[in-house]
């Protein structure tokens, strides 16, 4: 049985991805040129945003749901992490799981009314939530050890920051910590896509009427998907909070959510590799451009036009094209039978 299981193409692909991901997560800081401060920190944040991107990708690629509020949910995850930490001083791993749960609840509550209508209403409602969350986050700020529900220290008191987890104190260790966490969460997501919930989601995406006729409760399954992806996004928020110990409302604007959606579609929504590419495009590309000296705002133009192009012509995104290339390299076209010459 395990032989059959291992022979499945998707299982092998997932295992190769798992091994490659772990190797990258553990080995990358040791590479010369990467280990030096700034670029490693950029890659750490890229890896964190790959989680948020995976949430968007699974929702759109597997269920056809458009959620434009994911950066807002990252902010929610980060806020809850900092709030719980400053209130209880629990170990970071416990705080991270709690933040994931709270973010899942928020995501479900927001999606619940819209899911009863068409997919377009979810897109509209999530865009509105993205706008509202931006303002709420700017208004409330992020907890920094102060009093009251908002936990904001002001005036004479010094702002407290959340220390990094015990296993990831230095930049190198923290990258490994984030890398392993990201790979583990992505592996769980991949597993979920291969077993029953994933297949049910695929059935809903194929045709809602067919899924209903098979006895699938489509609203419940969509809510479950929203809960799972929101939890994943909450983990991203927790890791982001841990990376610097304090968060800035300016990095959670509504346009960032739209940008993340664009990068995921360009990266590819049908595989988790696309999510990783999306994370790199989302955070790495602007950093790279500003190092070269190009105005970072041009990223919006490039990725915006890329989104239009991805929607109209290349549904599978960059990851899909890479996959196609790999398959063509693996299986060279059958040679034409040599013509018999006289």
């Amino acid at each position: 049985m395990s032989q059959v299981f291992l022979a499945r193409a998707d299982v092998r692909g997932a295992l190769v991805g798992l091994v490659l991901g772990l190797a990258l997560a553990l080995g990358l800081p040791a590479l010369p040129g990467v280990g030096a401060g700034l670029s490693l920190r950029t890659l750490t944040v890229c890896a964190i945003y790959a989680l948020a991107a995976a949430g968007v990708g699974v929702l759109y690629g597997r269920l056809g749901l458009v959620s434009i509020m994911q950066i807002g949910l990252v902010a929610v995850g980060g806020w809850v992490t900092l709030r719980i930490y400053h209130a209880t001083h629990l170990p970071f791993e416990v705080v991270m799981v709690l933040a994931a749960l709270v973010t899942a609840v928020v995501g479900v509550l927001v999606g619940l009314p819209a899911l009863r209508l068409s997919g377009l209403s979810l897109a509209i409602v999530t865009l509105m939530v993205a706008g509202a969350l931006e303002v709420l986050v700017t208004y409330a700020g992020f907890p920094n050890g102060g009093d009251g529900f908002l936990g904001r220290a002001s005036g004479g008191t010094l702002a407290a920051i959340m220390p990094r987890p015990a296993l990831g104190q230095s930049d190198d260790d923290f990258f490994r910590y984030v890398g392993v966490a990201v790979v583990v969460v992505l592996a769980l997501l991949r597993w979920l896509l291969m077993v029953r919930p994933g297949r049910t989601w695929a059935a809903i995406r194929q045709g809602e009427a067919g899924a209903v006729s098979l006895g699938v409760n489509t609203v419940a399954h969509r809510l479950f998907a929203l809960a799972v992806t929101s939890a994943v996004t909450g983990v991203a928020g927790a890791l982001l909070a841990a990376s610097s110990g304090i968060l800035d409302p300016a990095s959670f604007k509504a346009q960032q959510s739209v940008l993340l959606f664009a990068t995921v579609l360009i990266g590819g929504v049908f595989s988790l590799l696309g999510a990783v590419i999306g994370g790199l495009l989302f955070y790495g590309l602007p950093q790279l451009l500003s190092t070269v000296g190009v105005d970072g705002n041009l990223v919006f133009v490039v990725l915006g036009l890329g989104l239009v192009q991805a929607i109209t012509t290349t549904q599978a995104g960059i990851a899909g094209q890479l996959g196609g290339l790999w398959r063509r390299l693996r299986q060279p076209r059958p040679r034409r039978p040599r013509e018999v010459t006289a």
Partner: protein
Amino acid sequence: MNLLPFVVAGLVIGSVYALSGVGVLVLYRTTGVLNFAHGAVGGMAALLVWQMVELRMQPPVAIALGVAAGAAIALLFGLVAGPFLARVDQLRKAIATLGLALALLGLMLFVWNDKARTIRLESSRISFDVAGARVNVTQLVCLGLALLVVVGTLLALRYTSTGTSMRALASDRELAAVVGTNVRLVENTAWAISGAVAGVSGILLADQTRLEPAFLTFLIIPELAAVVIGRFVSLWLTLVGGLAVGVGQSLVSAWPTVSAFSTAVPFVVATIVILVAARRRVVTVRVVRT
């Protein structure tokens, strides 16, 4: 507390939301594209007007050129992306315009950065008192224009040949093409008209609120709320919705304790409307046409 000034301001902003929403609605009904870039097109027009006035151009000429620019941007997108978008479902059409919004926002931030600017229309300098609230001519123009556009659109859809073609496309695109409607021409007309409407409302909103790329781009949120209240079909309900959202936001911002939450008003209103409107989710089996 005298709430009248807040009600007046809310009505004015709300009427521009409604005006803009009419542009979104006409385009959506004609082409099936829900244009998330509507606010960005308006922002672009407003910034162009600001730039041209800075370059010592006569304000009326600048405004006319700004509105024309809005129409041109929308028309260009319709011309280039329209044929591709015709083949994908409604959700993907809407997402593609999200890309346009992002591109326009990036362009605005690149050219003009995100400094707060102001644009003062000549008509805003003339003002008078109405029952204790200060009203200027621009605000009257906003209210009048919204009413005019709603009535005008209704009449145009009813009595002109282009309007009839638009209604034909709204009910069945393929069938309209079969009976000889020039689908591409009608769609491009809808793009240009909605772009011009976006330009007008963008300039008015920039005068009434503030001239800032990201802010104007995301004014699509209350505008969409107006369209949602109109249930994606009714022009009158869109007008009512725009006014309701505008007054709601303005009243919430009147109390200091809750004023920070005024941008959440469109979300709350739209969610309530969606909850009330959706009695039962209908699953339809689509007939595949090739």
